[in-house]
């Protein structure tokens, strides 16, 4: 590994925060310079990302690459251990990609009270937190990055948000922190309870995952997994921990909503795949049916919630709950197939829902309202935006050929044969319910499209000149739209990366399956 490889991943994590520090010294009145520095920072970060992607060894996606393992906090034997494998890679790429586009989009759309300097500093700090979470291979390091995301988002919602921003931001913060408190207790419990073969204790995710929770009593495993479950489920968010999401999304400024939907929600599902399931496979199996139940409740509840909304942004927020339900359903099967689908679903949802939030933001900027009753005829006034909205609605409802399909459909399919030891009838019931969910999804998305884009322009906006897409919007949206199509046509580019590491995640269950399969023939069950 050459010197640049050694530093590249740390660079990808810390360049944004260095940019933020640099920004702090640029006087507030030099707005263009501030924006340029911020954009440059994210572009350089993304450049490092491109380098990482280009030099990644795609034959060994299950191995940690660009790994750095240095001493950090010896007293608690926590180490600065980062690395990139096939699960982290798509998430890191998504995070860097969206961050650049968010700055491009907000170039001259800074929400009130303006102040681009503070806004961009927060955005850059946020990026460090997100990138760091996706590459951390040590539980304490993961926790630090996971929490680092909270503060900037809290301020982003609370300062630049809508009328009800203070309530929404504190709710977001408190609920998430409650989950984090349980999560860190579970991390500590893992440290104390898991004994490595050489008798030592560790926070290292790779080492912890390699022993599959050996030495922990089943009851304790269930409790620890419960703590992790609540911590991650709040972030996802899963029903019934979702209540912070509609408020946060509705009040957040456009860019905040985009980042929230595209990346922050993924921190939760990523936590399940990276930490909870590989480290405690036995407990995961006991919890899986419950995760599945909550996932399908989320799918149906989210969809029904959508149908009851009058606010476009709130509708998209509820649709996030439904979509993340599909992701969690894939994870709950504990199969390679299901988890691969889940990761694809995470990427697809990030792109599509992120794009929908961009659109909602732009529509609000033009019409000064997001109320579905007052909107209408977007295709007449701003045809390009109208068509893009239609395109994204199609992608979101899982139209084959677009990215959304490959997250949703395989996730449903995976419930047909969940990991051995899970109740087959129950999971097939989930399959039926989830399929109904897709119909509802088509329902609410088309309903939204119909009310926003079709029909005639409402009287109050009839004589108003509505500007169609402008420069920054073209620049920010085109890459997303291209990717939605690209991933829809060639989903293999993601699956190829994720498959091997996911096999490693589910290996504990596969081993079990083999032993059960051999037992099955003896008993003579079908």
């Amino acid at each position, binding site marked *: 590994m050459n010197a640049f490889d050694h530093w590249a991943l740390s660079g990808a994590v810390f360049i944004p925060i260095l940019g933020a520090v640099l920004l702090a010294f640029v006087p507030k009145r030099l707005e263009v310079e501030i924006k340029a520095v911020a954009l440059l920072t994210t572009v350089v970060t993304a450049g490092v990302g491109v380098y990482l992607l280009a030099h990644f060894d795609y034959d060994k996606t299950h191995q940690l690459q660009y790994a750095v393992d240095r*001493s*950090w*906090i*010896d*007293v*608690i034997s926590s180490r600065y251990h980062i690395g990139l494998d096939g699960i982290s890679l798509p998430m890191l790429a998504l995070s860097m990609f969206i961050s650049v586009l968010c700055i491009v989009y907000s170039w001259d759309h800074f929400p009130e*009270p303006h102040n681009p300097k*503070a806004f961009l500093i927060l955005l850059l700090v946020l990026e460090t937190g997100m990138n760091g979470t996706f590459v951390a291979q040590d539980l*304490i390091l993961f*926790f*630090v990055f996971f*929490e*680092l995301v*909270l*503060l900037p988002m*809290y*301020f982003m919602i*609370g*300062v630049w948000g809508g009328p009800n*921003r*203070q309530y929404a*931001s*504190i709710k977001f*913060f*408190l609920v998430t*922190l*409650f989950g984090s*408190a*349980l999560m*860190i*207790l579970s991390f*500590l*419990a893992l*440290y*104390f309870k898991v004994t490595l073969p050489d008798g030592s204790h560790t926070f290292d995710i790779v080492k912890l995952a390699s022993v599959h929770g050996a030495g922990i009593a089943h009851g304790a495993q269930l409790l620890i997994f419960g703590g992790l479950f609540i911590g991650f489920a709040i972030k996802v968010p899963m029903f019934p921990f979702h209540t912070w999401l509609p408020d946060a999304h509705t009040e957040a400024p456009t860019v905040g909503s985009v980042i929230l939907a595209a990346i922050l929600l993924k921190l939760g599902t990523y936590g399940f795949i990276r930490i909870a399931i590989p480290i405690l496979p036995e407990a995961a199996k006991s919890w899986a049916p419950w995760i599945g139940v909550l996932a399908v409740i989320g799918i149906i509840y989210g969809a029904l919630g959508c149908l009851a909304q009058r606010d476009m942004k709130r509708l998209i927020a509820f649709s996030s709950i439904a979509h993340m339900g599909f992701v969690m359903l894939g994870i709950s099967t504990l199969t390679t197939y299901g988890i691969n689908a889940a990761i694809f679903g995470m990427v697809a949802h990030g792109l599509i829902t992120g794009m929908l939030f961009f659109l909602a933001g732009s529509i609000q900027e033009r019409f000064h309202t997001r109320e579905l009753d007052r909107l209408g005829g977007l295709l007449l006034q701003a045809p390009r935006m109208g068509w893009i909205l239609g395109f994204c609605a199609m992608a979101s409802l899982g139209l084959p050929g677009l990215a959304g399909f490959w997250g949703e459909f395989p996730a449903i399919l995976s419930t047909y044969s969940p990991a051995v030891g899970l109740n087959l009838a129950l999971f097939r019931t989930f399959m039926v319910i989830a399929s109904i969910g897709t119909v509802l999804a088509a329902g609410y998305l088309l309903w939204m499209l119909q009310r926003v884009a079709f029909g005639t322009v409402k009287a109050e906006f009839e004589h108003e000149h509505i500007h169609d897409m402008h420069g920054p919007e073209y620049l920010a949206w085109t890459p997303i739209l291209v990717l939605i199509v690209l991933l829809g046509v060639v989903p293999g580019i993601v699956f190829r990366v994720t498959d091997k590491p996911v096999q490693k995640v589910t290996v504990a269950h596969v081993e079990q399956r083999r032993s059960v399969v051999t037992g099955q023939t003896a008993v003579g069950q079908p």
Partner: protein
Amino acid sequence: MHALLAVASSFTGPRLDYHALAPEIILTATLVLVLLADLVLEERNQWLISNLAGIGVLASVIPIITLAVQNHAARSMAGGAYVVDDFSLVLKALFLGIGYVVLLMSTNYVEEGDYYQGEYYFLLLASLLGMVVMASARDLITIFVALETLSIPAYMLAGWRKRDLKSNEAAIKYYLLGVLASAVMLYGMSLVFGYTGSTVLTEIGKQVNGSITHKPVITLGIFFIVIGFAFKVSAVPFHFWAPDTYEGSPTPVTAFLSVASKTAGFVALLELIYVGFLGRNDVWGPMFWVLAALTMTVGNLIALRQTNVVRLLAYSSIAQAGYVLVPFAVAGDNIAARRSSFTAAVVYLMIYAAMNLGAFSVVIAVARKTRSGDISSYGGLFEYAPGLTVAMTVFLFALAGIPPAGGWFAKLMVFRAVLDSGTTWAVVLGVIAGVNSVIALYYYAAVAREMWMSPVPDGDVTPVRVPAPLLASLGLTGLVVMAIGVYPQLFAHFGDLGTLVR
């Protein structure tokens, strides 16, 4: 004459290790110099005094460094009553650091106030001297003398603004309850001394762990001593003096009391528990459990309702003391817990000092403009004082324990001690601490919300002018808080020097 000389020569004074005592000696010399300077200097040159005090404090850090690099075994004096070891060196450095930051915070505050300057610094240094002595005290008398040396000047400092009713109230409450606590503690000490026949903690430790372990008199003695210190560290239900005293005192003094004086109380407790009463965790274990649970919960719940920022920080510091009490509650459970509790308590005290002093520095800076301590006066601070706002945000979220600001590591160490013990009671306490951290976030975030999200109450957006010393104290504390948060190892090994842990 000859007879007199003979008597004099037969008296053998205690062997003094001047190198080991150098910090105390320099501090005492500075104290005298400050008093003299106050007499000599004219009114317009009085600003020199604070510089003199600051230089003195920094100078007393030098022997601590030389002692530390020598890597000498513990230097014991006066038959084990006064010990200079790694533990005491680190805590002396901590106290002097706190003292220096408080001096920085006081400089402009005292200069611009209507009251005497010289005496203020004299009292502050005297109190600091008591704390430095406390870090080395290993016997009941020395602990008591150190405690009074640090407390009596503090009573007077609390009443510094003598024409202000609230300041008078602060001082009188602090004084009465402080004296009561001393009396209770002294009674406990006399019981322990009466039974063991020694005031030296190691000797007491031998006896308490040995033959007389379950004598009720010892139980009673430990009980009273712990209660006495519970007053000093303002643990619930012995906390009633704290909010009024903190609110009424001059703000730098409040910072000093809530950080230094509290830390001194905990240092004494560490010495007493770890050296003297280790064998009787059946007495102090449950006591600390109850104190910790109550202190965290009550402190946080009352803090939720505060509208004055100093009172809020007062209750928050009560709650923070509750987190420090948690390791004490689990220290006796097993050897691993004993070690990690010690580390947790020391590390917590160090981080707490940095973040709380930082928060108070911001309060002083903001009050220079708004002349108010109401949380509502912080509205829109971000618009006209973004630097102070960011600093305050860092300190508040450090106190709340959100990474990457330093406090998270302190809480993590506490949780580690809890899980090292692993008993059901310990885990229950850990859960109480966890729930409390979430409650606490609410009021810390409320201040942040006011600063970032509310409009400026009177529309006055002239920037806040922060004088250089205050800026230095903000910079120092902020740097320490962030450094600990990002690279805790830098400070964590200070807590690992378990010279008291056997």
